[in-house]
């Protein structure tokens, strides 16, 4: 009898959780304030985007990524930062979709970070799942993030 109740409970939990995930996966939510970095109330770096990142030691999401993105130049319009891990089935599809967007839209760069090898950054930016995609604007500030594989249209409409 107990077994039957556990079966029913497992079915309800699985359908509820899976349904919730299917609805919210890949949806970009505005984050605005930078997790793990001091926010800049003046917001003056926005016009001088690239110079601002290179010259001023201002804390942005991009600088918080640190050596994880050492070899990459951020995009002038936006940078799509994808956190992946070895045991992640939807990371492959996400990589293809974000790569497509970066290939089609000028000024957009796609960076993939292996979450496992950059756990400090993962903790600091509050990344809980893979794939998680952060959209950074031209100044390196996070403007939106999505957990789960996004559709191409969701990425395009979330771009700054």
């Amino acid at each position, binding site marked *: 009898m*107990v*077994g*039957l109740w*556990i*079966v029913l*409970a*497992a*079915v309800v*939990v*699985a*359908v509820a*959780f*899976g*349904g919730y*995930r*299917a609805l919210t996966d890949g949806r970009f939510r505005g984050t605005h304030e930078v997790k793990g970095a001091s926010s800049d109330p003046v917001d003056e770096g926005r016009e001088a985007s690239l110079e601002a990142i290179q010259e001023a030691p201002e804390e942005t999401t991009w600088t918080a990524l640190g050596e*994880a*993105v*050492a*070899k*990459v130049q951020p*995009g002038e319009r936006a940078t799509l930062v994808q956190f*992946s*891990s*070895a*045991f*992640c*089935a939807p*990371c*492959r*599809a996400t*990589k293809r979709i*974000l*790569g497509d967007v*970066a*290939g089609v839209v000028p000024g957009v*760069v*796609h*960076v*993939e*970070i*292996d*979450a*496992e*090898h950059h*756990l*400090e950054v*993962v*903790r600091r930016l509050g*990344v*809980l*799942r*893979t794939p998680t995609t952060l959209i950074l604007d031209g100044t390196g500030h996070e403007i939106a993030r999505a957990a789960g594989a996004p559709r191409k249209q969701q990425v395009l409409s979330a771009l700054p």
Partner: protein
Amino acid sequence: MSATTAPASATDAQHRQGIDPRGPQFTAAITAVVLIAVLLLPPFVAGVLTAVQAVLFAIGAARGVQHTVHAALFKRFVRPLLAAPSELEDPAPPRFAQAVGLAFTAVALIGYATGLTLLGQIAIGFALVAALLNAIFRFCLGCEMYLLMKRVTPQTT
């Protein structure tokens, strides 16, 4: 422009050959049926069936999901009925999930063996949630737990 800084595992995985994602999904569906049977059968039979499922999980974890009994059934009977897959999948995530399944069935086995039937049933219940999520939504719960576990364990390397 697209750049990647993901070293070792993640990039290696992309060079490896992919598998049909419906294979692991089929495996999960069979697993869910077995786990439901475990929960509905009397304790002794349930314990024996749990041991069988633990062996099946162990095969999947040790040899990879494409070399299991389920995979052979899938290739022989199910795939001929399906269209070609739209996208191939990395075999590493479902293989890891098999190891997570093995851990839960091991706990359940201890429960059934020591007379703690409720412990066994609860452990099987968790495994059933994971199997159903995989079978219905192709969602890999064990894979999600991987990063969370990594996050809480202090970095040793």
